[in-house]
């Protein structure tokens, strides 16, 4: 089994934030993936998707699924991140008041993403954009241990 999906995300469009995560969740449910793994995956993805909407001009989400794992790549065009290490600190945020009004922007997103993925890789170029890669394995042996 090899599945590939691509979704585009519009920066600033909060009413659409979460649509990709919702579609990925439905796909994983149809594939009968373990419920705990689905939850970890979509929580990490949703935080990352909200980040594109909140901080970037737009982006693409690439999803690849095989028998063992899901690989998600979120590529955005945006301001990029100057200090990735700092964004991992709980409480650090550059979110606008608008983002905070949506219930985000408290500086928890990246640590949430990290806690809910087997592998999280973030690369960024200031002035160009950010790429976030999330890999989760379907065999649920990492759940809660990270």
């Amino acid at each position, binding site marked *: 089994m090899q599945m590939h999906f691509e979704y585009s995300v519009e920066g600033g469009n*909060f009413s659409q*934030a*979460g649509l990709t995560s919702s579609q990925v969740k439905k796909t994983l449910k149809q594939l009968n993936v373990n419920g705990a793994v689905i939850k970890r995956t979509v929580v990490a993805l949703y935080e990352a998707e*909200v980040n594109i909407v909140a901080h970037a001009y737009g982006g693409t989400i690439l999803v690849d699924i095989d028998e063992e794992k899901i690989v998600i790549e979120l590529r955005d065009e945006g301001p990029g991140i100057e200090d990735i290490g700092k964004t991992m600190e709980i409480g650090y945020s550059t979110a606008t008041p608008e983002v905070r009004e*949506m*219930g985000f922007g408290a500086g*928890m997103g990246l640590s949430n993403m990290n806690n809910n993925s087997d592998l999280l890789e973030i690369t960024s170029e200031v002035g160009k954009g950010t790429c976030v890669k999330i890999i989760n394995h379907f065999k649920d042996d990492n759940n809660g241990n990270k």
Partner: protein
Amino acid sequence: MKIKEIVSLTNGSLITGEENLEQLIERAFSSDLMSDVLTVRSDKLLLLTGLVNIQAIRTAEMSDICCVVFVRNKKVSEEMVNIARENRIAIIQTPYSMFKASGILYSAGIQPVY
């Protein structure tokens, strides 16, 4: 506790989720911060919030929360109802404040997450 009892204890109105009324809730989390809600791993969880927007429903969807209580009678949009319906999430609207609704449910036996 069944969702139908939560409707009655909070003096609430069920906006959507007739089919959820018999579903059991064990724990509740009260928050307007969705990132905080997304850290919760409990099942059979109820969310009480004053944040009335699509993200509250999307957060419930991602976290497998089957019932959201919106406090202080805040108006729920049609789009929110549609997303909730699609994902079988019950929405309750209560006139009570977050403090009062949480207190009543806690006294009635709903457990906290932390």
